[in-house]
């Protein structure tokens, strides 16, 4: 029995190690790329070169302000994530706990909003934001970070996710909290939120990542070059007939670090049996 278990364990680790290698391989390629020139990179070289310092120097000397774009992306992604988590979890929880026929219909209708390709919505949406100029809401109009954030600050995707999570949230907890005299909002903040750390963590990772990589909408709605986000700057770098891939790899690796770190710290909240411990 025990021998069988160790064998099984070995197989498990082996599978995980192989999967990890396959997954990390392109990332490794990027890191190697940081030290090479374009010719080596497009040739698929996996040997470290000696150009790391040069590539970084080019990156920071480029007129495409990479550091500035990191700052812009950080502002947008942090605000989007914070706002989206609050609004969407409220809605997802609301739809599940206070289910009525009408709310079900509204929810199903909301789902429709994630089914339309964004390319089809972009031009009407742009027209809407461009009409804000000259009105008191001008600061929310085109070329503002608000215009980037607003369409993503609550999404059917996240609402759906929080709702599916709330399905396994024991309803008895709500009832007993009501008897204890908590208001409905307090039940959400005091009972639901603390036991849903896992859902919030997953949502935070996904939202931050989506916002950080968001491309089409910021491209169209941001106009001044100094407001460009990281993907826009990287795209401008790669546009050349002879792109400097060494420099780009440095930028790319730097730009993936925030999401990777966020994931590493957030995944610690994926610990089994949390709900059980709260209940008991």
């Amino acid at each position, binding site marked *: 029995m025990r021998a069988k278990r160790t064998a099984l364990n070995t197989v498990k680790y082996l599978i995980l190690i192989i999967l990890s290698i396959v997954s990390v391989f392109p990332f490794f390629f990027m890191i190697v790329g940081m030290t090479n020139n374009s010719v080596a990179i497009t040739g*698929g070289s996996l040997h470290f070169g000696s150009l790391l310092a040069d590539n970084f120097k080019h990156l920071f000397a480029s007129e495409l302000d990479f550091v500035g774009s990191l700052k812009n992306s950080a502002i947008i992604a942090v605000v989007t994530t914070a706002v989206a988590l609050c609004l969407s979890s409220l809605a997802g929880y609301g739809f599940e706990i206070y289910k*009525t026929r009408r709310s079900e219909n509204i929810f199903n209708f909301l789902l429709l909003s994630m089914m339309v390709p964004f390319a089809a919505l972009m031009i009407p949406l742009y027209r809407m934001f461009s009409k804000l100029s000259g009105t008191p809401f001008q600061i929310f109009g085109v070329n503002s970070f608000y215009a980037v954030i607003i369409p993503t600050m*609550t999404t059917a995707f996240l609402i759906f996710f929080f709702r599916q999570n709330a399905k396994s949230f024991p309803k008895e907890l709500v009832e007993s909290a009501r008897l204890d005299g908590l208001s409905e909002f307090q039940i959400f903040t005091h009972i639901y939120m603390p036991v849903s750390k896992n859902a919030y963590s997953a949502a935070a990772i996904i939202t931050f990542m989506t916002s950080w990589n968001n491309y089409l909408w910021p491209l169209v709605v941001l106009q001044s070059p100094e407001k460009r986000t990281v993907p826009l700057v990287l795209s401008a770098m790669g546009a050349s007939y002879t792109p400097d891939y060494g420099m780009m790899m440095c930028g790319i690796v730097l730009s*993936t670090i925030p999401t990777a770190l966020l994931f590493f710290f957030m995944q610690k909240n994926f610990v089994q049996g949390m709900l059980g411990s709260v209940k008991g």
Partner: protein
Amino acid sequence: MKAKKSRLQKSGWPFFTPSVIIISITVFIPMIQALITSFQSGPPTNMQFTGLANYQAMLHDATFKSAATNTFLYLIVQVPIMIFLALIISTLLNDHRLRFRGLFRTAIFLPCITSLVSYSLLMKTIFAPTGIVNKLLLDVHLIGARIQWLTDPFWAKVLIIFSITWRWTGYNMIFFLSGLQNISDEIYEAAEIDGSSKVHTFFHITIPMLKPIILFTTITSTIGTLQLFDEVNNITKGGPGNATTTLSQYIYNLSYKYTPNFGYAAAVSFVIVVAIVILTVIQMRLGRDDK
């Protein structure tokens, strides 16, 4: 008075109204405008109503047909594989006795944040005729001749399916990992005491308990695949010929690569919407019935 107040308190409206308002403004209003556009054609600044002309044109449009066929092929083949893989991986990575758990998880998550630029560059080099993959396959005698991964219509599709799976499995893993935390330990312990095997536990406890999340990932992956653009546009550009092109890429081309034809592009978009709605309704029904 008191009864009224408590009913009001127990309603979900305060919870979801803000989101409903925002989504209505940022999605539904533009969506209605796009729907109107789909019945129009002509130069973008002076579009005229042409009724169903755009929708009729699709019936005779070979590019549209190959894009639609490819897209559905990706959907049918890729989504089930990816969801199942993600389920198994997240179950493995959920074990609290597992060492280096955080590292394994982060490693498998990495593909979805690896930049498209470097990822497509790499895919193109390792799957080149003389690339590593062919070399490996030749060495172990799995194939007799080099496979033209990027320029053969069949293998290019295989490559695209592999690439999407590689990139998005870790993404779906997050939702499963998070969902697995809602299953209490006691259930697993009870199963272990009953002497049920790991496989049995996986199919009879994990999957049923995760059902809401499986439904969520299936629906969102369906949507994602039907709107697939990035991987195809970066790795094969839709080629060889139109062998790997997708509906989203076609919409993009109609709007930006060709003389802008926003009416037709909008019409193709709504074909995608209708397809997704139908599939979602089916999936929802399946997910609900045997609950």
